[in-house]
């Protein structure tokens, strides 16, 4: 698998398994890197890539779920989590739009 994609999946898995909002930064960066790659891509996705992309969207959704459940009490951490949610949800939705176009 493409290293950008596998890196994104690993970071998203780490976020989902740890449940730690601080792990969101790397997961978001990974998903956004995949978004950037897909935007500049000229060739259609293979069947295997479509599956991997779907898996990444599912992981992104789980990551969003993790962040929603985190509910930090500290106001500053709350804002940080909100920001992470915004970016992860956006990245997941953009990945979804890429997948919808490919299917």
């Amino acid at each position, binding site marked *: 698998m493409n290293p950008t994609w596998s890196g994104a999946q690993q970071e998203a898995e780490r976020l989902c398994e740890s449940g730690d909002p601080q792990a969101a930064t790397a997961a978001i960066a990974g998903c956004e890197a995949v978004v950037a790659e897909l935007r500049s891509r000229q060739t259609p996705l293979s069947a295997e890539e479509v599956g991997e992309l*779907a898996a990444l*969207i599912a992981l992104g959704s*789980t990551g*969003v*779920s*993790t962040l929603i459940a985190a509910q930090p009490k500290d106001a500053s951490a709350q804002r940080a989590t909100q920001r992470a949610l915004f*970016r992860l949800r*956006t990245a997941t939705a953009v990945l979804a739009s890429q997948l919808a176009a490919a299917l």
Partner: protein
Amino acid sequence: MKPVVSSTVSTLPLLELPASSTTEVAKRSGLLSDDPLQRSLFEVANGPRKASYGTDTLVAKAMVTSAALSLQGVIRDVEHWAQDRGSASFNKLIRGLEHANKEMQELTASRDVQIERWSLTEVGINVHQGHLFHELSELQARFGELLEAVGRSPLEQFARSDFTEQGNEAKRLFTQLSKLLTESQSLESHVLWHARPEGEGPSPIETIFPATALGKSSLEDRRLTDAYRKHLDAENLLASGNYPEAIGALFESATIVARMYHQPTNCGHALIYLADALVLTGLDKQPIEHVTSVGLDAGELYHAAAMFVRSATVPDDQELRRLVAYVHAQLHDLGRHELATQTTREALSPGYVQGPDSGLLLGLR
């Protein structure tokens, strides 16, 4: 599921059609043009058409509520399928997703017409926290729940296994789910910025773009309307994850406002909005060299914003204190503790003397 919209619409005198689409309603009422903004400006100039306006509001609210109910159904379907993984529950999930997608597409198609027109007519920009705000916030919450349900489901394993084997079921599921996620993001773009909790800070968009100025004919008000269009572009770009272009559009919008030196409060709020966008997108350490001749990062933009607003008011002004408290918290979040202290001290100091041109503070181009 019975769509809520039908029963609501049937009581409305102006509608003779089953208004499953607000676009249809707008066409029937003669208000829909190819360019919603131009149409809105026309309406501002010629007076609001209250009956049609009110009708559209009710229809749109009903549509949003109906979509939220459909999403609740989809969430239940996802959970059922996650539990039994049976073909019956799978097919029910697909049908639920298809139905929700149909509703969402209609809603999205109507959104531009609705929001843009309402934004610039009699209600002004307050539409963001008025007519549809609560309904759209509810819908946003349902999407959050849907994502949670998807996250809890075995969708990831399903994607990996099924796409590499037959692919048909996974393809059906992800086709619908991807469409739904895409539509939701499009709708959310008009909500997420205005969901700041009560008391957390100013509601900048209403301050930056006063409804009374939009669509008016004076040069300054035309500039403000231009800035507002840029601002809407920026929000859509943010929602699509295109951050560099979004920041560029926000910069252009903020710059137009900032050049209106006699309205330093608008300028301050515009700068806060830009700084918020930088923070939200993780670009807070990147100096925005286009904005000023010196290049300011998000922290410095917050500082400049507070000083702009201070230049227009007195230290014990309630709005200034609320804004400074917000800026102070944001600066601490960014780890800019010294700047937070400095900003609060300067902005709330009785001894602060405004310079001859507050624009010079920023070296605005």
